[in-house]
């Protein structure tokens, strides 16, 4: 299959590139124009072709005409204002998904998030929900990724890992939970969904259905680094307020204020678990033991280049 991946240089995109190439698929990586000819791009293994893609200016249908599958994962996380999120990330994604459908791409997969659920108040979750609706209305698939963790330590998991390294870790949403998915499981699930023709007309969650208490999650992350978590609970409203102020002043911060809302108000459950079981897709329970001892072959296989 010819598989296009947008956001192919991101944390999830890098894992997917490797996973699809491992399975013998041709990977067409859609990345920012300035990354198409970068040294890293030239050196990357498993990518048949690099194509420019800016989320604000999605390519026309012609750019997708030769693809069997398109996985849309690009999302500009540096954008924090409502207008930019809707005007760039959402509008750009919706146009891209329509163009891919118009080009006749057989399987269109939108990478969403477990933050996207009906009733969410988080901007990121609402924005992903809007794109999900578009993807599904076009006959595509929406995959809601849980907290992706694994040896690559990117994305939110990477940010939490850095937080757990602090001498004292402020803990927001200590009583909350997250749904997690190992990098390797996420990649395998995505490959199976892409290879299958099974209709998935409602969003499916790529995460283990067992909620992981946030405190336990942070403790395990700390232990995986040979540390003991020293956490103190902080009201999330204070942290969110500080981050919002920093964002307004354009001070770089490790978390978006909106992410805090995602941590304290997570989804209640993982959707589509049974449906995915029909495809033979299941997800391991949360544990960092295998990653600590590097015993998981699949995890190593999908290790992003920058972590190897």
């Amino acid at each position: 299959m010819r598989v296009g991946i947008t956001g192919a240089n991101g944390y999830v995109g890098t894992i997917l590139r490797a996973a699809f190439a491992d399975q013998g698929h041709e990977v067409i990586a859609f990345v920012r124009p300035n990354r198409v000819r970068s040294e890293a791009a030239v050196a990357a293994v498993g990518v048949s072709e690099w194509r420019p893609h800016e989320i604000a200016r999605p390519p026309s249908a012609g750019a997708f005409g030769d693809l069997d599958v398109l996985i849309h994962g690009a999302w500009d996380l540096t954008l924090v204002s409502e207008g930019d999120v809707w005007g760039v990330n959402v509008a750009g994604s919706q146009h891209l998904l329509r163009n891919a459908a118009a080009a006749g791409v057989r399987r269109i997969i939108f990478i969403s998030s477990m933050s996207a659920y009906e009733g969410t108040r988080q901007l990121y979750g609402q924005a992903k929900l809007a794109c999900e609706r578009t993807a599904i209305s076009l006959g595509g698939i929406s995959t809601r990724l849980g907290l992706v963790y694994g040896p690559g330590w990117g994305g939110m998991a990477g940010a939490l890992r850095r937080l757990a390294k602090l001498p004292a870790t402020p803990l927001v949403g200590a009583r909350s939970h997250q749904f997690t998915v190992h990098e390797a499981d996420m990649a395998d699930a995505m490959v199976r969904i892409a290879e299958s023709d099974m209709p998935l007309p409602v969003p499916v969650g790529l995460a283990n259905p067992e909620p992981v208490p946030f405190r336990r999650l942070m403790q395990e992350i700390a232990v995986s680094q040979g540390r003991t978590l020293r956490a103190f609970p902080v009201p999330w409203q204070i942290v969110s307020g500080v981050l919002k102020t920093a964002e307004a002043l354009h001070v770089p911060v490790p978390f978006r204020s909106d992410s805090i809302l995602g941590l304290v108000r997570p989804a209640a459950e993982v959707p589509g678990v049974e449906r995915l079981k029909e495809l033979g897709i299941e997800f391991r329970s949360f544990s960092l033991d295998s990653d600590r001892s590097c015993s998981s072959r699949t995890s190593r296989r999908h290790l992003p280049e920058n972590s190897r």
Partner: protein
Amino acid sequence: MPSSIIIGSGPAAAAAVLALSEKPDEKITVFDPGTVLDAETQGVISKLSRLHLDDWDEDDVRRVSLQPKRIQSDALPEKRSYGSDFPFANKGQLNGVHCEGRVNSAVISSAYGGFSNIWGAQIMPFSAATFKRWPFSFSDMEEHYRTILGHIPFAGESDDLEEWFPLFGSPTPLPPLAPRTQMVLANYDRHRDRVRSAGITIGRARLAVSAPECQPCGLCMTGCPRSLIFSASHSFDRFRRSGRIDYRSGLLAVRVDQEGDTAVVVARELSSGRILRFTADRVFVGCGAVGTTRLILGSLGSDRSVHLSESAQFVIPMISMAPTPDPRTRREFTLNQFNMLIALDDDGFDVSQIHFYPFNPAYYDALPGFLKHRSAAFATDRLLRRLTVGLGYLPSWASPQIRVTAKASADPDDLPRITLASEGFSEAKVRGKGVPPMLLDVMKRIRRAAPYLDLWPVTRQMLWSGGAKSYHFGGSFPHVSKPDARSLTTDRLGRLARWGRIHLIDGSVFPNVPATTFTLTVMANSHRIVREAIKLTG
């Protein structure tokens, strides 16, 4: 062979043909003045529609995207269709039409397709509660709504509007919505309970548009270069291609009558001035509410007044605190994108509706002069990122009526002279004692919801459109259960007491006009009338 004549080529007429064409042996003749877009502009549209929008020639685009023209200083400008005013062109149908004060004078179209050449393409049924005042029920209309929605392109999505306005049929998804629309919808989701407690419901637009083929180019309001916005002319093109109708343009109907069981139409040939006489088993009159009213009053030979019920229109700018990216740099689809319903009751009867439009160049044109100056660029930029314009409607029972007074012409083969006057509030600025009370209530509710939706009404800049400007008017010959000879009322088949073979099929027969969208019900009711007439008389 049974025969029918349809007068007009607008949405009501198209729906009538649709119903008649189900009868294979029916001879169908359609009359209208038949004004069309000039051939040169049609050529440009045809060229644009074949190309990808990145390959469009700038001069071609400029030619077909002329902005609306200001006709009155204190009224909404008049739309253009591909840069042309052909939907408003006077081919004689407006001779003898006089309007008082701010009443709109372009009330009868001579165009092939009528005013559907420049409409907003918004399609929703009336609420079930609206029909409680009609001599038939919502359930009598359901199958006709479905049939019409199966005949025209239909884009929309499932949302809270379905509580009162069922989403008949299977709409295709809308093209991607503008950032402001997405933000308002997200805010509504986030604060649904609080917004609903103010009586406000928000939902996406439902449009008669072939959305899957849309490549957003920002030209919806001046005419879609791909002709994806439904016009009744598209239906007639199809009927003509299939040979199902005998279409005769260049005719202006001046009188209808019935002789025995034969319906008669007298029409003037516009090119020669000759008077022609046609007969058929049935005549369906769909000239638009004012055109039909004039034709019927003239045919009755009476100098009298009737009242048109109008769902009056207002324009309300809204400001948001959170900005969007500069809308001038984007290519969105620019039709109505979301609707706000403001309900004063619990069953969907006393409802006002506002259609919200994303940025289009008419916004910029409407700004005060000083904001267009180069030195004000910063302020204008900030404003345009926060500005949304709503086109609002009140139901006819909360709006001023339009009085139509006819005076018979000396020539029996001429249409009567008519005068249109607004009875009630007609100032441009919404101030003073005469303001419809419902409008004040509506604004109060919008202000209550404003902090949650981030949509603040700028009431000082509100504009009350002149009478007959909404194009949502009718009811001069309303349906009643039992029409009598003295009152100008019609039965459920759109027939006045004196004629059994002449059916009025447009808005002129609506018992009232709610604030929700108009054209779909015009089409569905016309379809119902024709179906029932066929059943009755074969």
